[in-house]
């Protein structure tokens, strides 16, 4: 049983790696040839561009090796951009993570047509973004928007009475929820579908209360999946560009917008390669998040 598990597990076992290491001669495997087109394509259109950014990011404009461009990321506007992106990604992760999980909880109980509609709606909404989404929210929640008017005239709640503005941080957060919550629903549904009614019944017959079921079974079972789903939300919000570009008019410091500005030629003299360092900064953050995600996934798969 254990052996079978090891064989089917996606992560190679230590034993497996050991044996391949002990064969000293590298034998060329002809079946690799079939993968050559993919290797070449990804090499040229993915790895080569990334390598070029890395190379540019560690050279100053006099072609000297330096890490100062990365150092810059920790000060001034650059730091503000990273802080802004972190804040937006974090808040949207929390809000969308919890809201999405709650919706998921109710949606997995539905059947038939309702289920089909909600699941395809989630798939569709999660892929909505950019300018169309931004304008839809302007039409709904803007000063002249239908929902703003509805809230004011029916519920006597002036949306713009407080600090809310569609173009500031909270506005963007609201817009992000529109595609982040459905994304959460998509990612989290399988975890909830794997829950068994037998666990509830076993807990009951063993004398456990509802609270004990939540505390000892449900939460420990779901937590790794929930956290890993949240990490994906973080990564998605952190690197989203189109929606932010359409919404903020540059009023909020965010890394993707900052990079966009640099690409569009708004470069400070002498710091031509700063954009590359920022782009790499994003890649590194994204790498860390995905690595944590994979780690958590391993924990869930072991179960």
């Amino acid at each position: 049983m254990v052996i079978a598990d090891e064989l089917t597990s996606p992560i190679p076992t230590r034993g497996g790696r050991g044996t391949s290491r002990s064969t000293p001669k590298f034998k060329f495997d002809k079946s690799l040839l079939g993968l050559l087109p993919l290797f070449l394509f990804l090499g040229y259109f993915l790895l080569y561009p990334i390598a070029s950014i890395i190379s540019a990011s560690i050279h100053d404009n006099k072609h000297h090796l330096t890490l100062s461009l990365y150092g810059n990321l920790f000060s001034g506007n650059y730091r503000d951009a990273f802080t802004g992106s972190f804040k937006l990604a974090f808040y949207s992760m929390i809000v969308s993570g919890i809201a999405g999980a709650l919706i998921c909880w109710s949606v997995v109980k539905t059947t038939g047509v309702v289920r089909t509609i909600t699941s395809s709606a989630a798939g569709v909404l999660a892929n909505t973004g950019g300018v169309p989404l931004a304008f839809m929210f302007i039409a709904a929640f803007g000063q002249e928007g239908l929902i703003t008017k509805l809230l004011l005239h029916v519920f006597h709640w002036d949306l713009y009475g407080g600090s809310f503005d569609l173009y500031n941080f909270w506005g963007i957060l609201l817009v992000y929820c529109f595609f982040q919550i459905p994304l959460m629903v998509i990612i989290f549904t399988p975890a909830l579908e794997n829950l068994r009614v037998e666990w509830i019944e076993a807990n009951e017959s063993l004398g456990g209360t509802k609270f004990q079921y939540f505390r000892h079974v449900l939460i420990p079972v779901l937590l790794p999946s929930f956290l890993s789903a949240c990490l994906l939300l973080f990564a998605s919000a952190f690197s989203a560009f189109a929606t932010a570009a359409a919404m903020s008019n540059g009023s909020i410091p965010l890394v993707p917008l900052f990079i966009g500005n640099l690409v569009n030629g708004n470069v400070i003299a002498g710091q031509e390669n700063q954009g590359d360092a920022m782009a790499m900064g994003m890649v590194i953050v994204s790498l860390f998040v995905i690595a944590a995600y994979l780690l958590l996934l391993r924990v869930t798969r072991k179960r």
Partner: protein
Amino acid sequence: MKRKFTAFDKVIIAFAAFFFIAPLIAAAEYSLRGYGDKGHTFANYSWIVHQLGFSPALLTSLRIAAITILIVLVLMVPTVVYVHLGGRRYRRLVEILCLLPIVIPVVSLAIGAQVAMPKSLQSTSYELCFFYVVVAMPYVYRTLDIGLQSVALSTLVEASQSLGADWFKTLTMVIIPAIRSSTTGALFITFALSLGEYTLAVLLHFHTFPTWATNVSQQNIYGSIAISVTTLGGAWIFLIVIAFIPRIKSLFAQRKRVA
């Protein structure tokens, strides 16, 4: 035995439905408004079509989408089939490679393209096709992989050969029909992505339909919302069609069996 559907669930679903449907209705209403409270009109929609650059932008996007699909068809489909047949031991490697683009933010990829690609390629909007293949790759791989797993391709091939079919017959009569539905799915995803992609297009300064729509939007708020409603509506209908393709297919299959 299903878990019970409670009042709490109803509240949650009603709330979610409101949050996702209300902005749509609001946008639709807004797009029908006329200037100076002249009641509701379709003027904003006809305005879109009469804007300069509408059809060239749409045509460019369609051409890019077509070429992207072609590359996916030539590059990805044979590779994933190959991994499922001969190069099984490299499946893990190929999976990691194909999922790699998820880790790379599109903004970073745009910078990389600007730094690394030769000028000749950067001067044509068809450069986008290659990068759209990269961006679509994780989804394309997943779709193809899941599709191929469910048909147990190697068993089918063995069965076909033990029944006396040569490689050509196996390819045309077994492999291609077996992967048709997952291939269609992968191509639809690619198509949707290429038509709607904005980040790479705008950062690399190309004029595609999404960048055109953004530019035009600066001029007329009502018109821009009409554009949003049109593109969102179009994209959604498209994506819903993708989601329902397997159902429609099984419907047809049933018809055939009955007939």
